[in-house]
């Protein structure tokens, strides 16, 4: 790495002598992709706490229905004497999903890691449109504000489900008291859409236009491929949700009737409008929200691929098939939305079509799993904390992927639709999958972000406890689903059929409490390591991709030299060099005899 430094970027990070205006420009309304990435990271981690606590509220009600919530019950629900009311229960699961999906998973992947890693990994000094980038973060704040506000009116948050199906979410009388929260919810989600849209335009442009010399598309790390495909998905699917959101908003507030049929009688009153169709909303909503499922997993798959290759000290198995698999998932992702609607009243013939496309989308996912196994095969696996999280992503994704086949089978879906089976499925994909990948990625890229390591021992304790508790919480959900235990019921034990499931729900609740409590270890480790972690150099893990060539943390403008890329990012264990890693910027050996010749096929 003796390339000439083009310009020194030593601004220093001491805030002494910095004027208020400078401080605001540098750390608040910053145009630097790394600051924006960290802003996203901190905001989403804070919302992660909120989302987790909302989940505990749900679990409490399911384990101890109608009993006083300990400690905080009296404070929150004084009118009900410390109980969770059925109205508030609908709010709990609506807001848990909303917060986790729109404020945690999507922004932490695209916003935090996308922003932080894209320019660094492709060898650019910043994003293509820094101002747009700043706006994409600051558009999250109206959303935070609006959704935060929705907690202020009874029943203290929107209660129409995160899917916000009309007519329940449109007709004011259908959910007494939901007037303001539901409207604020819709506006908030629209702002998240604007933020993601700004981000996705920026990511696509940056990845296409700003790559360092030599960085061809097929030398990009899988993380970048994941982000790139995600950005495309967002750019094409989000306008539909934004438009549909506006339609629902005008249905609610202006009296249009896009989603309201004739002849409704809600709470003994006739709404003034009609002529619409509730299922139209479901089509529009899932046309975005199914690709959104891949928006929530593809970047995680990319990051996991990078981590697994790095700690197997071995080239990734089947780089191009992995890229094609991601693209295949994205392409098929646009034509499977109907599998959320098999029993919705949609034409049952159409259900057959969606069954075939949904079955086929399992294929690229399977290919990815096989390639990850192939990557581990024949390597030298180092069980660092990021690797443990990445490996658990793979094993948990297998469960989440296979349980999807049950739902894709339309006849089986008749029985398990809207039961805990689907809850188990998406928690395996989104929590056991994506959230574990996000934890792994935080441990992996933390040294780059802050120049210090996170504590490995605490990290491993965090991993093992989280892994144990998450399986205790979510695996049991499959069994509840097999009994037909429906989701979204404040008191399922009212039904004979489900009364005997209470003990299992108690077990799950205590696992969930344990899981949330475990995250205190992570929070402690994270905060402590920012200030007191072991200081490390540029490349603590011995990785190849470009971000590890920049200083830790990188200054403004990222690289202190012009990166030139000679090869892909997964050349671990190459015979051309003595080290077991081979950075993308390291020139090949001058002597042609030393160069590796791939065996002829």
């Amino acid at each position: 790495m003796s390339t000439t430094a083009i310009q020194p970027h030593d601004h220093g990070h001491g805030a002494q002598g910095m004027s208020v205006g400078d401080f605001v420009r540098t750390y608040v309304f910053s145009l630097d992709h790394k600051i924006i990435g960290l802003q996203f990271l901190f905001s989403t981690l804070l919302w992660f706490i909120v989302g987790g606590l909302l989940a505990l509220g749900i679990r409490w009600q399911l384990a101890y229905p109608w009993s006083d919530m300990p400690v905080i019950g009296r404070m929150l629900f004084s009118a009900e004497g410390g109980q969770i009311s059925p109205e508030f229960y609908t709010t709990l699961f609506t807001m848990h999903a909303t917060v986790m999906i729109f404020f945690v998973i999507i922004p932490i992947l695209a916003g935090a890691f996308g922003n932080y890693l894209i320019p660094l990994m492709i060898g650019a000094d910043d994003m293509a449109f820094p101002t747009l980038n700043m706006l994409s973060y600051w558009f999250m704040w109206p959303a935070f504000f609006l959704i935060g506000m929705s907690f202020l009116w009874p029943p203290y948050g929107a209660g129409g489900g995160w899917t916000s199906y009309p007519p329940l979410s449109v007709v004011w009388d259908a959910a007494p008291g939901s007037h303001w929260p539901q409207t604020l919810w819709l506006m908030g989600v629209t702002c998240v859409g604007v933020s993601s849209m700004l981000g996705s335009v920026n990511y696509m442009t940056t990845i296409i236009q700003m790559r360092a010399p030599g960085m061809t598309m097929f030398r990009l790390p899988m993380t970048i491929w994941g982000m790139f495909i995600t950005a495309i998905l967002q750019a094409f699917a989000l306008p539909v949700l934004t438009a549909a959101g506006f339609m629902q908003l005008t249905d609610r507030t202006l009296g249009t009737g896009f989603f309201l049929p004739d002849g409704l009688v809600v709470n003994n009153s006739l709404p003034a409008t009609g002529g619409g169709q509730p299922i139209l909303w479901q089509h529009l909503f899932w046309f975005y929200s199914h690709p959104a499922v891949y928006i929530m997993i593809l970047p995680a798959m990319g990051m996991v691929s990078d981590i697994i290759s790095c700690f197997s000290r071995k080239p990734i198995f089947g780089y191009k098939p992995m890229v094609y698999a991601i693209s295949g998932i994205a392409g098929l992702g646009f034509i499977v939305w109907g599998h959320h609607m098999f029993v919705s009243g949609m034409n049952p013939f159409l259900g057959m079509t969606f069954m075939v496309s949904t079955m086929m989308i399992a294929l690229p996912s399977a290919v990815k799993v096989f390639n990850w196994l192939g990557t581990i095969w024949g390597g030298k696996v180092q069980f660092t904390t990021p690797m443990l999280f990445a490996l658990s992503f793979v094993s948990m994704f297998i469960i989440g992927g296979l349980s999807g086949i049950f739902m894709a089978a339309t006849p089986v879906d008749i029985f398990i639709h809207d039961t805990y089976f689907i809850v188990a499925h998406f928690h395996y994909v989104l929590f056991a999958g994506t959230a574990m990948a996000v934890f792994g990625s935080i441990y992996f890229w933390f040294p780059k972000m802050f120049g210090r390591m996170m504590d490995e021992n605490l990290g491993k304790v965090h991993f093992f406890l989280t892994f144990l508790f998450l399986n205790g919480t979510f695996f049991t959900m499959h069994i509840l689903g097999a009994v037909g235990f429906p989701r979204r019921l404040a008191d399922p034990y009212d039904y004979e059929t489900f009364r005997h499931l209470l003990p299992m729900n108690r077990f799950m609740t205590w696992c969930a409490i344990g899981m949330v409590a475990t995250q205190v270890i992570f929070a402690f480790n994270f905060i402590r390591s920012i200030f007191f972690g072991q200081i490390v150099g540029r490349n603590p893990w011995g990785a190849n991709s470009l971000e590890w060539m920049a200083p830790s943390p990188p200054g403004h403008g990222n690289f202190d030299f012009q990166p030139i890329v000679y090869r892909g990012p997964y050349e671990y264990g190459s015979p051309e060099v003595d080290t077991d890693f081979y950075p993308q910027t390291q020139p090949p050996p001058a002597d042609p005899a030393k160069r590796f010749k791939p065996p002829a096929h």
Partner: protein
Amino acid sequence: MVPVLGVLCFVWAMAGFWPMQNHWLPANIGGADAHAIDNLFIFILGLTGVIFVGTGLVFFWFLWKYDAAVTTEPVKYFHGSHQLEVIWSIIPAAALLFIAIFQMTVWANAKIKRPTIGDNIPKPPLAEITGRQFEWRIRYPGKDGVLGNEDDILKVNDLHLPMNEDVVLLIKSQDVLHSFFLPHLRVKQDVVPGMQQFVWFQAKKTGTYDIVCAELCGWGHYKMRGRIVVQSRAEFDKWLEQSWQEQEVSSFAPPAGE
């Protein structure tokens, strides 16, 4: 370890050992369609179970064998194999396509091929069920067999059915989305305001079972509970007649003595 535990959990639940009695598919009182759904569930469970255990074992074997602290082999400098990719694309693709096509008949029987009487005339509904916040309103057509006139028999949350017959129900919603879910019959259909839909099934066993609302319909969603009572045809007719008498009395004449 994890795959083994997972499978054990399922086996445990299926076998119904303590404390997991009845932690499995609820008793199936349905006809051939309902049993076909259970069989498909078990089939997919078996298939995915084998894949799950297989990949899990390979995964842990690799991790154990290629542990950097243990392995003495040099790293295999290897970028992948085109042949393997083709093999592990085609095999799952064929399996998935097979599952998809294999079950289309079951789906068609459950949702498309409504039972007929005689000359391909669709069987008329036994009753009309209207979902409403937060109850199921049930309307039997009465003696003339036509819904929506004066001799209809009205009930709330109490659906009686004859056993061993094709039962067709007309389901509707008056206000928001609901879902008509009969767990023991493996029947589920969302009811949508503005649409009329039919469900059909056969009940093979007498008894009382739950009607569950499976689509969020507001704060009282959890208590939108109905029951079905499966009876022999004779008892059902008797009950219907009795209901009609009670209704006649209550709607047109006050009971004697008032």
